């Protein structure tokens, strides 16, 4: 086979890419769509965290991921990569950022370079779905706190201890109950009443 492997020609991204590009509605058509996406990608690289509509954010994310991965693969001495960076980043100081800041940051990254999280929807509205698109490793406070699942978080340690204590006390109770039921079976109130009545009847019979 003389055919080149596709995976070596195009960098494989760590996000799911749909088969066809999403059609974003624009007066200028496909050209306007790309303009919009360029603006978004530029904003993402500049601010590292932006909030926007889902469709636009999801579409821009793919181009941003591709750009970063190309930059990591080829470096800044590769002409097509540089041209792509020049095309996608409208503010030219961000080209420096791409090669000098983002490439070292994501070089050893095993996951996707960006993350997309659903923003809260305003109550009782039919507004469009908003998302927060961000570059990983940004200096802002984290959106999702993953410490909740951390076993060593003080709350989790205390909860685990409380659970353990509760379980132990339950086991002790169960063990005590097992010992009691084997020795004697306590009589119920109904049985007692019945025996009393029988006794009374016997007394009446003897009187007659």
């Amino acid at each position: 086979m003389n055919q080149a492997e596709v995976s070596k020609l195009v960098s494989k991204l760590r996000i799911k890419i749909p088969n066809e590009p999403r059609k974003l509605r624009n007066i200028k058509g496909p050209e306007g769509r790309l303009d919009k996406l360029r603006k978004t990608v530029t904003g993402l690289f500049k601010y590292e965290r932006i909030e926007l509509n889902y469709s636009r954010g999801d579409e821009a994310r793919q181009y941003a991921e591709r750009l970063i991965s190309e930059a990591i693969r080829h470096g800044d001495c590769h002409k097509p990569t540089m041209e792509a960076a020049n095309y996608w980043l409208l503010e030219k100081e961000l080209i420096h950022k791409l090669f000098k800041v983002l490439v070292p940051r994501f070089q050893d990254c095993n996951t996707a370079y960006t993350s997309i999280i659903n923003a809260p929807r305003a109550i009782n509205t039919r507004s469009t779905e908003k998302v927060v698109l961000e570059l990983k490793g940004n200096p802002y406070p984290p959106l999702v706190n993953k410490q909740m699942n951390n076993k060593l978080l003080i709350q989790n340690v205390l909860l685990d201890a409380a659970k353990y204590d509760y379980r132990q006390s339950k086991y002790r109770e169960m063990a005590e109950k097992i010992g009691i039921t084997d020795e004697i079976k306590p009589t119920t109130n109904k049985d007692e009443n019945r025996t009393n009545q029988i006794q009374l009847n016997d007394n009446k019979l003897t009187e007659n």
Partner: protein
Amino acid sequence: MGARLWRFVEIMKYMERTILSNFFKQPPKELGLFSVTEADANVKAPTKGYSLKDIIGDGYLLAVPKFRRTIEKRLKRKYGSPEYVWKMIVPKNNIKVCQECGHHHECGRLCENCYTKIETETKLIKDKIVEKLGGSPIDKEVVVLYENETPEQPKEFWKGKRIIEMKKERPSWFSKNLLQKSTQEPSDSKDVKPTDLA
């Protein structure tokens, strides 16, 4: 000559409109939008050849619905359609309690309370970074330091990094180590508490 005559005619018309009509207590002709001819009482209505024009005369009819709307259409207007826009009030079953703050939020979305808090802080940092870096080429990673924060990392860590200082204390929820509050120093107040009370 012609112009003068025209002017005279105009004046006469104006006189007729204002003075004469006022004198005879008639409304000005401009307000007479409809001129419905009243049928004479003596003249009998024509028995045949009856048409709509006899009723409305020079007037006109407004557009009105011609047919009754079907029950399906009426109900859909009222309640909507479950597949498209369902107007009924339906309880949401995807509400969760936030692990951080205890507010309710939709499943699979960020908590609104937490997010607004983060958003405002993010905006402050963003503005600070943009103000500091300006339009210069960005070639260094940015590290945000709050007030009263001492960098604990060795010197090599700070090499090739741009420090942005926020002129406020680090918010308690944006702490790297939740077990220990790094910003608050131990108090050095020398207040003596009273002893042997009650």
